[in-house]
């Protein structure tokens, strides 16, 4: 996390792995907050889509996560730090179509291996670090000042 003096808003959320009933709550809350601040709809949509795919991944693949949501005049940042199995091969995971999802996840409408590519497409910057057996951190940055 940064100590950016320009921070206008910082919120913390948590996501519980396996909690399919609540999946989507963090992203839709973030979306509402960005709407309230008054950012343009296409920008909000990009943040919401990227956050939602990352949130679904935590619910599906991890045990839990802390989410930090930060807004400055120039950037919107969403950082998801999860505890869980981690990702052994990040390059492979980033490939469209690569998925270890189960049928249960496919029934939810996910698991086609498009989540991480979707996050990348919507973020101006995406940083993922992961340690097998420990967890994964996903840092989504979207530029706000255009």
């Amino acid at each position, binding site marked *: 996390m940064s100590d950016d003096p320009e921070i206008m808003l910082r919120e913390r959320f948590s996501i519980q792995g396996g909690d*399919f*009933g609540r*999946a*989507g709550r963090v*992203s*839709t809350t973030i*979306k509402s907050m960005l709407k309230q601040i008054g950012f343009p*709809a*296409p920008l909000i*949509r990009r943040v*919401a*889509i990227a956050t*939602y*795919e990352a949130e*679904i991944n935590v619910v599906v693949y991890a045990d839990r996560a802390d989410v930090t949501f930060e807004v400055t005049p120039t950037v919107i940042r969403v950082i998801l730090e999860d505890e869980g199995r981690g990702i052994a091969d990040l390059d492979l995971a980033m490939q*469209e179509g690569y998925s270890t999802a189960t049928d249960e996840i496919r*029934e*939810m*409408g*996910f698991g*086609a291996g*498009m*989540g991480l*590519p*979707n996050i990348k*497409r919507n973020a101006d910057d995406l940083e993922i670090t992961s340690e097998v057996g420990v967890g994964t951190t996903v840092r989504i940055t979207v530029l706000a000042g255009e």
Partner: protein
Amino acid sequence: MTLNEVVHVLEGELVCCAEKDSMEITGVCASDLMSDVLAFGTAGSLLITGLTNAQSVNTAEVADVVAIAYARGKRPADSVLLLAEEKGMPVILCGLSLYEACGRLYEHGLVSGSEIREPQ
């Protein structure tokens, strides 16, 4: 086309947010795969789907989809309809297949609400 006209063409029933029936629908995105909707759907579209869980509603909200039609007589659980109502997301129930529902709306001039993408 207005939401009301969509309901009529689909021979469906508007079960959520009936007060929004004059809202304008600018396109249609049809899929059971939510990642597809998130990747290729365009804002302002109607989502036609056979997926009736809470993620269909969350996906619609996140992707700026303005209404959902559940095809082939599928009815989401009450908790999902409640979530849609809370989010102000109009819901249409219709008995047509996904293909038939899309075909009819296309025939009535509703364009694609999804990006075209070449085979990879």
